[in-house]
Every structure is written in structure tokens, then in C-alpha cells.
């Protein structure tokens, strides 16, 4: 029973997002918002791994999203499209449907490597100091990109639109949404599996008491590297998807405000809860879109929301529980945290 439950859930969501989009039942705007929701789910879960499960305080997550966005976009534009930045494509645009996922992965790997700038200092410092380092990394990323004129510097980079069009020309599918959907599934599966394993639980042990962990044979450095590279790598993939969704990126898109939005989603959903991250990513993205007419007031609302959250419900919607913990009737179909505790792994 349980084995197939999650599959059914994924199939359901596929059926209400990608399928209708392919059939042309949704207009461009709805598709855009759905893709954005998917991207935000990946971002929230990836940050939750670092801030929630591992209890660090990374406030510069947008930098890794940005690395992925730029790397993936540069690759696809260079290889598959005719652009004002690079000239003629190196490969046939028809190959974009194969090149796109590869570019996303390369973007993710680049972000994962970039995360070492934070992972290594995390060996010796924690808390406030690490927060500063993540902040500095955000500044460094922005500054770095602004200095590279070949990709537009502060003015930005574009051309991804041609790539997505090229993909659509070969087979008419909502490609970016499709890959976003897959990215969401992969993220949920990987992170869930990881934190349910004994190795992954070591990350929570680090949060609870790092010294005790180290003395109980947990290789804290290795785990920190894994957590940062995984979390930031996933953010990089999300960034690549983001770049191809909005088709025009600039360094300011991946700066403090974006990092703050991700923080809101993580703490709104609950540190250490995947269901919470999913729920808050969906809810918050929709909220932001609904508030669009408010213009700048939107940006006032975001930090205000975070303050109110801290004052009145810092544990967020789900705390550190998952849906089956809150709704016991779900336990017939899905594994609750308690069972993960007893059996040791997600399903038995």
C-alpha cells in the first residue's frame, strides 16, 4: 500500500500541472506561476536541509541559486542559440532537449562547488559568524557577476527564451515545467531518503550537539560538506530552471531579497519538515502573485510577515513534523516520522 502512495501523489500533481499545460488548457501565466511554485519548493527544501535539519543560519542561499542560473543559462545559450552575447550556436538547437537537463546538472554542480566557500568555514564556526560568511558570499557572487561583462555584468543576461523555443520546436511540450516537476520529485525523494537514513540523521545530531556527535564517531566535517553541497547544489538546479523561466536574469535577482524570501518560506513551513516546506512554498508563491497589484507594498509585507512569524509562531506551520504526524489517518498510506524512528528507513 505504502509503496505506491507517494507515486500516486506525484501522478496526481503531474496530472494537474504538466498534463493540462501540455494540452494547452492553461494560459501562459498559470503555467508560469506553477513553474515558479515548483522552483520555490526545491529552494525551500534545499535551504531547510541546511537551516532546518542542520540548524545552521545561511542567509545567502540566493547566491547558489544565482550560480546555477548563470552557469546553466550560459551553457544553453552558448550551445543552442543565436545570441547577442556569443553569436551563433555551437550545436544544433534541436539538441537543446538533451542539453537542457545536462546544463541544469552542471549548474547544480557549480553551485555545489561554490558552496565549499561556506562549508569549509563551517568546520570552525557556527551561528552568527557563519551567517556573516553566507552574507559575504552573497555579496561576492553579485560582485563577481557584475564584473564579467561578457555575460552582461550588472545589466543582466538573456537569450534563454530562444532555447526554450528551440526545445518546443522539436517536441511541443512544456519543457521547463516538466523538468521543474522532475526536479521537485527528485528533491523530495533524495532529501527525504537522506534525512531518514542514519547517516542523514547525523545532521540533526550536529544541530543538537556537535561536539557530542563528533565524539560519538560522527564525521561532522564530511556531513557538513554533504549537507551544504546537496542543499546548495539543489538550489543551483532550481536557479537554472528559474533562469529559463524568466528568460532574463541579472545579479540583483539573486541577492538579499531573494535570500530573505527563501528564509520566509523555510521558517513559515517549519524547520525540519519537508511537508511544511512544500506547503509554505506553494502558499507563499501564490500569495506573492496575488499581492502583485500592491507593488512595493509587497516587499514591505515580506519582512513584516517574517517578524510576525518569529513573534507568534516561530516553529512555522508544521514545526518539525510531517503530514502523517499531524493527520493520523494518513498513516495508512504514508510513513510517519515515528515509523521512520522505529524502523530506521522510510518504508519497510
Amino acid at each position: 500500500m505504502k509503496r505506491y502512495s507517494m507515486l500516486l501523489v506525484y501522478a496526481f500533481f503531474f496530472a494537474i500541472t504538466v498534463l493540462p499545460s501540455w494540452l494547452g488548457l492553461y494560459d501562459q501565466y498559470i503555467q508560469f506561476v506553477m513553474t515558479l511554485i515548483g522552483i520555490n519548493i526545491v529552494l525551500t527544501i534545499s535551504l531547510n536541509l541546511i537551516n532546518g535539519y542542520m540548524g545552521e543560519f545561511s542567509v545567502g542561499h540566493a547566491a547558489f541559486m544565482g550560480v546555477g542560473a548563470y552557469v546553466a543559462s550560459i551553457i544553453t545559450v552558448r550551445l543552442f542559440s543565436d545570441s547577442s552575447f556569443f553569436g551563433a550556436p555551437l550545436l544544433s538547437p534541436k539538441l537543446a532537449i538533451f542539453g537542457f537537463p545536462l546544463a541544469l546538472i552542471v549548474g547544480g554542480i557549480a553551485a555545489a562547488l561554490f558552496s565549499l566557500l561556506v562549508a569549509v568555514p563551517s568546520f570552525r564556526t557556527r551561528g552568527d559568524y557563519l551567517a556573516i560568511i553566507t552574507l559575504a558570499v552573497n555579496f561576492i557572487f553579485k560582485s563577481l557577476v557584475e564584473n564579467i561583462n561578457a555575460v552582461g555584468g550588472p545589466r543582466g543576461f538573456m537569450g534563454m527564451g530562444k532555447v526554450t523555443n528551440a526545445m518546443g520546436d522539436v517536441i511541443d511540450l512544456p519543457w521547463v515545467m516538466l523538468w521543474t516537476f522532475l526536479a521537485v520529485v527528485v528533491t523530495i525523494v533524495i532529501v527525504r531518503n537522506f534525512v531518514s537514513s542514519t547517516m542523514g540523521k547525523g545532521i540533526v545530531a550536529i544541530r543538537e550537539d556537535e561536539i557530542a556527535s563528533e565524539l560519538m564517531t560522527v564525521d561532522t566535517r564530511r556531513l557538513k560538506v554533504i549537507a551544504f553541497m546537496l542543499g546548495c547544489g539543489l538550489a543551483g538546479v532550481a536557479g537554472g530552471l528559474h533562469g529559463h523561466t524568466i528568460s532574463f536574469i541579472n545579479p540583483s535577482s539573486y541577492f538579499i531579497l531573494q535570500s530573505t524570501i527563501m528564509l520566509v518560506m523555510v521558517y513559515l513551513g517549519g524547520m525540519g519538515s519537508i511537508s511544511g516546506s512544500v506547503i509554505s512554498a506553494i502558499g507563499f508563491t501564490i500569495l506573492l502573485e496575488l499581492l502583485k497589484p500592491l507593488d512595493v507594498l509587497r516587499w514591505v509585507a515580506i519582512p513584516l510577515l517574517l517578524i510576525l512569524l518569529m513573534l507568534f509562531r516561530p516553529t512555522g506551520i508544521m514545526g518539525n513534523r510531517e503530514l502523517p504526524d499531524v493527520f493520523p489517518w494518513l498513516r495508512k498510506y504514508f510513513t510517519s516520522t515515528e515509523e521512520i524512528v522505529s524502523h530506521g528507513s522510510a518504508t519497510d
Partner: protein
Amino acid sequence: MALLQIKELTHSFGGLTAVDDFNLELGENETVGLIGPNGAGKTTVFNLVCGLYKPSQGVIAFNGTSLVGRRPHAITSLGIGRTFQNIRLWNELSVLDNLRIAHFSQIRYGILDSFLFTAKLREEEREVTEEARELLKLFNLEGSEKELPRNLPYGLQRRVEICRALVMKPRLLLLDEPAAGMNPGEISGLMDLVRWVREQFQVTVWIIEHQMRVIMGICDRIKVIDFGRTIAAGTPEEIRNDPKVIEAYLGEEVA
């Protein structure tokens, strides 16, 4: 070959010498006590052995392998278990998880296995869970496996902590003031527990304690330090009657 060999161990924090020329040899299957006034440097010695600090000077060898300069997790996975003055269990993780995580160094599966939930992972996780459960049973703790440590009474928490320290199949067990905060009944229970652990697991126990009843009751030999320096060493009888120890620590009336 000695199980643990410490020679001329010295360590300073800033201008303060916390440990001065500490020497000790521990053999298999014995219980050794480390006592002294507060601030004498006892926990510092434990921390140096475990690799939390790098000694200014000295040799520490476990089964012939030098420990100096190694990371703590590497040191403990060689076979050294440890408990702490203030119980340091992971409070947001269940008792069972607390034990499972201590298996970390014995895990053979890799990162990809854990991402992809492979058969290899599932097999090993079953083993790890089984082993953890058996250990809990030995300690009479099976009922508590799903509990969070902070919800358990103090005495049980202590037991869990000692249980956890035995997961990595240590040859040496370091207990730092395990009787702290216990009433006389609990202390008797603890003494029985330590004796039982010695028997059952054939480990060497090195214990820091202020409760003289415990030290005199279970230790084969005792080392006394004050201000980082060793002031006496010997059997409980010898220590009990040593004037230097009485002056520095025990006081005139000894139980």
C-alpha cells in the same frame, strides 16, 4: 602493550596550565578512577585524550596508535566511548536514533545509497536497528526506544548515555561524573551498572567522580590530580590514607 598510554601530557589555555605532566597507563579490563578538586583538570584530560584539544606536549597512544592530532571522531571510532558531566544526548532525536547515530563509523553504505534508498542501505539500516535494539534490551531500556531523551527521568537519561557510549564497541569507556545529581539509591544502581558493564562488555572503565563511595567502591586504582598536577596514585586504600590527598581533597573525615 597498554590499552591507553599517556606520557608527559601537558596543556595550557592561554596563560593557565590546566594539565601538567600527566602520566597514566591503562590495561585491559580494569576500573581506574581520576579524582581531584573542581577545576583540577580532570575533564581536560578526557578532552585531550578524545582529541577535542591538541596538547601542548605529550604522548597519547591507544593500542599503540598515537591519538595526538587526530580528529575526535577518528579517535572514538578506534574504540573509545565517552559520557559527559552534563548529559549530552540529542534531545530532538529518539533514544533509538541516539544509539543508531553512534554507529556512524561502522556504516558501510555511501551517500548515494542514502539518497536512493538502495537495498544495501535498507539491509544495513536493519542491522543497525537490530544491534541498537539488542543493546537497549541489555540495558532494560526497550520500552523507551521511541522517547525523546528530555522526556526521560534523569537516571534513565544517564543509562541511555552510557548505553550509547557502548555502541561503537569500545575497549575503553570514559565516564565523566556519571553520578552527578543522583540520590544514594540511584548511586548504588549506577555502581552496579558500571560493574555489570565491565563484566558484560569487557571494557576498561576510566571514571571521573566526586562521589567517593563510587570511586572507593568500584575502582581498582585511583589517580589524584590538583591544579593539573598528579599528587597521588594507588589503590583505594592507599589513596584514602594519603595525607596529601586528604589535605587537598578528601578532608579529615573519610567515609
